[in-house]
């Protein structure tokens, strides 16, 4: 990355609004920008309702885009036509969360895997079969798996099949939407390892969408933290994880339990210090986190904070990010002292 490369996926000021029948439109995503560079893994983190999946769906053409722009590999795909979308789909693929719903139960694994080839490549039957077999091997499944139906496989194996389908056309970017969330811990590690080794072999980029901080921390080089459809904080993983400047990121980090009783007890004390009961929802032009934030002041209720550089090095959308960063670092040091 010596020269400034063009991002592979460039989502600029994206807004997605859903309108239900007889309800006011719901802003699932509001002014979100995300970039993924070639070969990079970017994490999109947030709780339910944060809009993280919607951002991924917008890039895939599965969500109604109200405003903003999505540029993939130099092409504007914001409102891609069917034809354009089909052309892009060879390079832009997806692995979904649910290994049960993401494979058609009445089609064999071979039929599922060969489908992208039928759309995009003119191959002989033999060539297709060879490619499917090679891909099955790559994701750690037997060649014979092709003849079976999805219900023969465990969740982890199905997720491997879903990964194989995404990689059939050697895409440049794979959107992993909660790709390991439904898996058990031991299988989750297997699939994460698979994704990492495939990235090394194929140079594919990942947009890794997850609610699980420990997974994105491990997998991603950069993180984007979303809350109620807006970016709260973004930056290099180490920065966001170790020196978060946004009170929401801090809340999220300290709320995920550590599998160590001592460390968890101390972390809990941190939460207890910061805890502040949720207040009624603020006005539309308030910071979305204002009603839960322990640091809320008047300006938070009246102005949406811009996403700007914090003293800790990340970009954070908070009026009091520098105070928050200092407070967190102090608390973390206190915690570390206690641990020793």
């Amino acid at each position: 990355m010596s020269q400034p490369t063009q991002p592979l996926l460039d989502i600029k000021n994206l807004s997605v609004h859903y309108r239900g029948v007889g309800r006011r439109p719901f802003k699932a995503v509001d002014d979100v920008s995300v970039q993924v560079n070639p070969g990079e893994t970017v994490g999109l983190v947030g709780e339910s309702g944060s809009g993280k999946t919607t951002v991924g769906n917008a890039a895939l053409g599965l969500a109604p885009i109200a405003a903003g722009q999505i540029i993939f590999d130099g092409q504007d795909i914001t409102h891609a036509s069917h034809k354009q979308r089909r052309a892009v789909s060879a390079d832009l693929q997806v692995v979904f969360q649910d290994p049960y719903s993401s494979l058609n139960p009445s089609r064999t694994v071979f039929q599922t895997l060969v489908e992208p080839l039928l759309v995009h490549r003119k191959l002989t039957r033999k060539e297709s079969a060879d490619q499917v077999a090679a891909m099955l091997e790559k994701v750690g499944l037997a060649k014979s798996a092709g003849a079976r139906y999805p219900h023969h496989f465990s969740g982890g194996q199905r997720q491997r099949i879903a990964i194989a389908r995404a990689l059939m056309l050697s895409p440049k970017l794979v959107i992993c939407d909660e790709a390991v969330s439904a898996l058990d811990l031991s299988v989750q590690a297997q699939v994460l390892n698979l994704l990492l080794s495939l990235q090394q072999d194929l140079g594919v980029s990942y947009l890794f969408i997850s609610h699980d901080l420990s997974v994105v921390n491990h997998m991603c080089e950069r993180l984007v933290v979303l809350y109620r459809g807006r970016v709260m904080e973004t930056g290099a993983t180490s920065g966001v994880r170790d020196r978060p400047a946004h009170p929401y990121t801090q809340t999220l980090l300290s709320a995920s339990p550590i599998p160590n009783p001592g460390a968890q007890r101390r972390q809990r004390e941190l939460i207890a210090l910061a805890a502040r009961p949720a207040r009624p929802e603020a006005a539309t032009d308030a910071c979305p986190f204002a009603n839960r934030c322990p640091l809320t002041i008047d300006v938070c209720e009246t102005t949406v904070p811009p996403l700007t550089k914090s003293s800790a090095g990340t970009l954070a959308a908070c009026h009091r990010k520098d105070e928050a960063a200092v407070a967190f670092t102090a608390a973390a040091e206190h915690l570390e002292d206690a641990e020793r």
Partner: protein
Amino acid sequence: MATRAAAPTEARRRRSHLSPVAWIAVVVLVVLLVAAIFAPLLSPYSPNANDLEATYGHISAAHWLGTDDLGRDLLSRIMYGGRGSLLGVAEALAVYLVLGLTFGVLAGYLGGVLEAVVVWVADVSFALPQIIVVLSVLAIFANNSGAAMLALGILGAPGLAVFARGATRTVREELYISAARVSGLRTVPILVRHIMPQITGSVIVQVSLFSGTALLFQTGMDFLGLGTQPPTPTWGGMVAEASTFMGRDIWMVMPSGIVIVLAIVAFGLVGDAAQDVLSAAKGQGPTRTPASRIATTSQATEVVDRDETLAEVSDTARLEASREPRTPLAHVRGAEANGVRDARSDVPRGDGVLLSVRNLTVAVESSGASIVQNVSFDLRPGQCLGIVGESGCGKTMTALSLIGLLPDGVSATGGSLTFRGEDLRAMDEKQYRRVRGSGIAMISQEPISSLDPSFTVMDQIAEVVRRHSDMSRQSARAEAMTLLEQVRIPNADTVAKRYPHQLSGGMAQRVSIAAALAGNPAVLIADEPTTALDVTVQAEILQLLRSLRETGLAMILVSHDWGVIADSCDAAVVMYAGQVVEEAAIANVFEHYRHPYSYGLMESNPQFATAPRTPLPAVPGTVPPVGEWPVGCHFAARCQFASSECSAAPIALDQVERDHWARCIHTDQVANSAKVGVA
């Protein structure tokens, strides 16, 4: 693993396709159809051939189904009559299918204006009395039953459309449709390859019902004399003719009447069979609705997916188990059945133990396969015991057996459960009910669906309060308010008036906890209480559960999340493939674990990864499915320390140090490796 699982499943699938009764129904329909189509070739007589010598005949060699008032052969008339009757059904059905499917599937897949119009037209058509339209058509096109049946098909089509639209919408939500769209597949191939095959089953159900209705109309019109005119035979017309001679002879009406009944029953049975195949498929997992699947991922995989036998069982014996008095089963399949006697099970119940489990074994009734084997532990007042493990390891089944609410088709077959000195397994359903809620209470994973959707929060909690006390309605409501405040619900008085669907997940879980506390229980079993919640809400709920323990409430916390266990528990049992593999005080579970499974899970946790973006030391393989557990150590196949002794014979749960138990013969090796790993 896939290979092993494949064979029986395939066989079961094929078998579940059609029951013998359904086959008979299909055969009946085919016979009726063939008899009608080939009537000129097959019928013994001409339908209108009089034989005045043989009027009002009953069953005989010459006339198998007897004769009518003019001596015409009833069998021949039925065969010919079927032509008009079944042709009418076919006409109506063709229109019904073409219109209904086209509009329904397109509306379901494309949505938008088309969908709105289809739904509106269907709403209107449901309220339109079909009979009136059919009669109007007949009033104008006299005796033209073909026109009438076409009208019936058009009238029925919106019903099918709305149904097909619903089914299509469900399938459209499936992620594999999104995946196909992302792959660049066009709409028509998606409809043909992915959507149509999925909705066929439910369409068959509708089609068979409609066929029955159509035949009813067709024969009804003929009976009323508004359809095909005599002497051309029709089934309905034959009943009408026979009815005028009923005073003289009652046989004549039977053949034609029964044939109509037979045909409609056959249509219905085909529909039932399609329904059965559908629900069997549902139980298998792949075609469950997306919402329910995602919602119950962790629990469902435990109960349904990993163990297809179990799913089948709960379907067949759904209602028996939970309702009939739970007879205490003989303690035959206990420790001995498993071939090993755990030292753990011999530990006597200490003083002040509230709930004591010894050698608990839970099995699938049909196959006898155990899903929980020889589980033993004790719970003291105020203690929080964690049960941790992956899905398919028997955590939830262990928890459910404590409260006597195992799913149908699954039952505790061995061991003892002692609560406050009483043997729970010896209790009948009535006695058990007195323990539930007031002795042992439970909260489950899905907070919203664990509340009755039809009653307000207040009604549900107050009912439990009243059940466990002799309070008046008034004071029960006051008590319910206190409980809501106790679980720290803000604006408790407004929340009390809400219905479950108006609550957020976190709020619903608080309400569930309040309802569980309403009987003032001594033990609370929390089965994955925060799995469905966001991490910040999870922290709040865990905080609440912790504060409840300060009142002396003992708790069993079931979770797959080691962080949650670390946060809340004093001690934990680690379960793997139905067995307890490790039990220790909480610090030991996390820092001095002795079982390779605990070790493997700890190592593969990304939170403990040595460096980001490097391979995690993953445990290979998956939890073996129920029924395929090996004789020896269940973990041996995945274990890096395994030796030949591990698989030779069952491994006992042995004490490794005071109050620390592990089911492994290589605990020392684990301890050594772990030290290296931590350093």
